[in-house]
């Protein structure tokens, strides 16, 4: 069953078509990748899924709900979370607080009770903290929970972004270039974490990535975008041998190297 169905989605900026009639189905519990050169429309596509842009045309169905043009925060509340290509943490908040913010949609104590400092407030807060620490422990950051996010090393920041996304108890998690700027060792660790998200937590994962080694090894389904259009789709093997993908994206050498 498809958890996410994007049908004939189109987005233009002025005269430029960034995403052109793209259809994409994401199966529940799968790891899928979207690849393509820079400027192919991948991030724009993510931005439409998460409500930052409203698609000009097309429908997006998430877990049975139509979300095309819905506000970002409501989509997030429905259980779709993302990370950003250029890490967007709350830099001057602590690691723990970042995760607590990620939990926002799951905290419901009303305004009046907060002001009155009702007993439920502390209870909810304690519970949230415990859960946040669990998430941090899951990505291996619990020891650093009191540090400011901006003081974390690069790799930890990426992991914190994932922990923050997990805090919302998502059904689907979109990772925008999760290993950009990592060396091969760090990439391997990240690959392991992404795999665990699906295997342990049963999450559905969609990736945008340039690292072909990662993409080919981890994804069940790969979609290739070029100039806003989907030019190919399939498993790693299909993609690697697709002549159009080789021509537009992989190149002959790289296709071999990634094999």
């Amino acid at each position, binding site marked *: 069953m498809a958890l996410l169905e994007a049908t004939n989605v189109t987005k233009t*900026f002025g005269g430029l078509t960034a995403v052109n009639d793209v259809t994409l189905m994401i199966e529940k519990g799968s790891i899928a990748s979207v690849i393509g050169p820079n400027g192919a429309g991948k*991030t724009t596509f993510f931005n439409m899924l998460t409500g*930052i842009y409203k698609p000009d045309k097309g429908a997006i169905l998430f877990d049975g709900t139509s979300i095309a043009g819905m506000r970002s925060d409501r989509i997030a509340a429905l259980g779709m979370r993302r990370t*950003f290509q250029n890490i967007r943490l709350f830099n001057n908040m602590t690691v723990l607080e970042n995760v607590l913010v990620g939990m926002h949609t799951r905290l419901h104590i009303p305004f009046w009770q907060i002001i009155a400092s009702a007993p439920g407030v502390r209870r909810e807060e304690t519970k949230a903290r415990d859960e946040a620490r669990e998430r941090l422990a899951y990505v291996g950051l619990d020891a650093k929970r009191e540090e400011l996010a901006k003081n974390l090393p690069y790799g930890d920041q990426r992991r914190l972004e994932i922990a923050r996304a997990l805090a919302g108890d998502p059904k689907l998690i979109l990772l925008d270039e999760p290993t950009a700027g990592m060396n091969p060792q760090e990439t391997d660790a990240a690959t392991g974490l992404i795999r665990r998200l699906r295997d342990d937590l049963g999450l559905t994962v969609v990736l945008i990535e340039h690292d072909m080694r990662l993409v080919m090894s981890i994804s069940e389904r790969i979609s290739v975008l070029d100039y806003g259009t989907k030019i190919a789709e399939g498993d790693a093997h299909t993609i690697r041998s697709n002549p159009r993908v080789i021509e537009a994206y992989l190149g002959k050498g790289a296709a071999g190297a990634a094999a």
Partner: protein
Amino acid sequence: MAAEANAQTSAQAVRRPIAETLRTVFGPLVQLLLFVIGSAIALSLLVILLSLVQLGARPDLLTRTLTILPQVLIDGLVRGFLFSTIALGYTMVYGVLEFINFAHGEIFMVGGVTGAAVGLFLASVGLLEGMNPLFFVLLVVLIGMIVSGTLAVTVERIAYRPLRGAPRLVPLISAIGVSLVLQDVVRLIMTNSPLGFNARYQSPDFGPPIRLFEMTLGDRPVPIIISPKALVFITAAVIMLIVLNYLVNATRLGKAIRATAQDMSTASLMGINVNRIITLTFLIGGALGGAAGALFGLNVGTVNPYMGFIPGLKAFTAAVLGGIGNITGAMVGGLVLGFLEAFVASYLSLFTNGALSGAAYADIAAFSILILILIFRPSGLLGESTTQKV
């Protein structure tokens, strides 16, 4: 084929055709003209329509509406050019630094006060009497430009440059501080000098109002007049706009300004002295503001230290209305806002039979427009639709 393309690009690069330069310089002015005519016609039709609606209750309304219409249009034009010239200062600085120079209204005010001081000085040495009015205008505008331009550059050096790179609100707060300081420093100077708080702007005699034409409404003739000072103001403003357009769109310097506006650190990698460009931007914006102040003071007849605040705020509105960062936009925004205000100021009390004072509600109209524009089209009339990047 390659050689041909090559020759073409080379020719393009070496000598831009004069037609091209003319187009980049005058194109915006044509656009401006279209907006002026368009908004004048639209607003005129609107008031005529409104007066026709009320015709049953107040039969004389249409005649009265038509009688004052030409005068309202001229008034709108003067206001419009006032806002345009000030708005340019906001928009240029915003374009380069993405920063609202809140103190720009005070830079304008200093231009006005300087003009009044020049007038007073000339009168005190007895030169004012026989002076050629045009020469006088040239003199006050030049001195106003120099003083305000220098002031703007100094302010940037002292209060803004140390804050570059700080979070957005920090320089904005500093600019608010500068605005307050300038108001009171000028007040201190004025009240301790022969100028006084509300200084009279002395000038040579500009002669009687110019009669443009006469129109007959019913049985009485209505002369349509324009004061020579207003005419001078409009002319000077148009000249400044042309020069600025040339500077920004057709010179190497202008291109450097645009490059700096788009990406400061990369511009410096091209060998552009970014600090000098920023200084220059403040100089140009300040000088324009100073000239506007000198001319405005002349037109109104008095100046005071607080005269810059409201026009400054409205000029900012104009800049936003036109699309902040966009030079043509600032001019268009200024003119549209000027017309709008003139119409509200003149017709509101007429249509409500004096119940609401037009002058007071013109301010409210201006701010309402600002809010409406920002909500429905934050990029302004001519602005680029900026989409948030993620």
